[in-house]
C-alpha cells in the first residue's frame, strides 16, 4: 500500500499533500514526515487530504499530534478537505471543531493572510 507525501512551500506555508490510504501501516511514515517538518522549523502547515482514499483513527491521531506540535511553537495546522467520506470521520470524532478545514490549498494559504 503506497502513501504519497509531497511537500511544497506556498506563501509562507508548508503544504503537505497526502495521497493514498492512511491506516496503522502507513500512519508512521505520515507521522515521521510531520515531525521532520516541525523540527525543520515549519510551523505553519497545511495538510491537503484531497488525495486520501481512506483515513481511520490512526490517521486522525497523526493529525492531532501534528496540531499539538505546531501549536507548541505558536504555529498552526489547517486541513484541506472536500471529500464527504473524510469529512464524515472528522465530524463523528468532533475534529471539525478542532481543525480549520478549507476547500482548497489556495483558500488555506489565503485565509491566514487576512
Amino acid at each position, binding site marked *: *500500500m503506497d502513501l504519497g507525501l509531497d511537500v511544497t512551500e506556498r506563501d509562507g506555508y508548508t503544504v503537505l499533500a497526502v495521497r493514498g490510504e492512511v491506516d496503522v501501516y502507513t500512519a508512521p511514515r505520515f507521522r515521521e514526515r510531520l515531525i521532520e517538518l516541525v523540527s525543520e522549523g515549519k510551523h505553519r502547515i497545511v495538510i491537503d487530504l484531497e488525495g486520501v482514499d481512506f483515513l*481511520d483513527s490512526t490517521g486522525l*491521531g497523526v493529525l492531532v499530534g501534528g496540531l499539538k506540535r505546531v501549536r507548541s511553537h505558536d504555529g498552526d495546522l489547517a486541513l484541506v478537505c472536500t471529500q464527504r467520506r473524510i469529512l464524515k470521520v472528522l465530524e463523528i470524532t*468532533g475534529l471539525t471543531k478542532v481543525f480549520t478545514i478549507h476547500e482548497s490549498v489556495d483558500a488555506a494559504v489565503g485565509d491566514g493572510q487576512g
Partner: protein
Amino acid sequence: MDRVVELEIPARPEFVGVARMAVGALAGIRPGLAYERIDDLRIVVSEACTSAIEMLAHQPPPADGRPAGLRLRCIDGPKTLEVRIEAPGSAFDSAFPASEPEADVDTFRISLIRALVDDAELRTTPGGAELCLTLHRDAAAVDVDGDDLPG
C-alpha cells in the same frame, strides 16, 4: 440464504488493508448496502483489526511460537451483513474499554465504531474475544424471499 466467507490474517499492520478490501468487496455483492455504508464498514473493520493488532503487540507471543492471527468471518445474509472478528486474549480492550479512554486515538476509535455500524457487540470466546459488527440492509432493496441475487 446466508453465505459465509472466512479470512485469516496475521496480526500485523500491513494486513489491515487486506481485511478492509476483502470485507468491502464482499459487502457489495448483494444489494441493500449503499456505497457510503460499505465505506463505513471498511472503517470499522480497520478500527477493530488495528485495536487487536496494537493490543497483541503488547502481549507475550503464543506458547506454540506461531504468530498471532485475526480470524474474520463474514456472514452475508439477505437482511444483514455480519462481520465477526476473532482474536486471542483481550485484543479489543481499546475498542471496548472498561473505563473512559485516555488517548485521543482510542476515543476516536470508539466514536467511529459506535457511529458507523448498526450494532457492535463484544463476545468472549474460548481462546479470546470476538467483535461482532452488524449492518442492516436497506429493506427496499431486499425482496420478501431474500432472493435478491441474479440467477
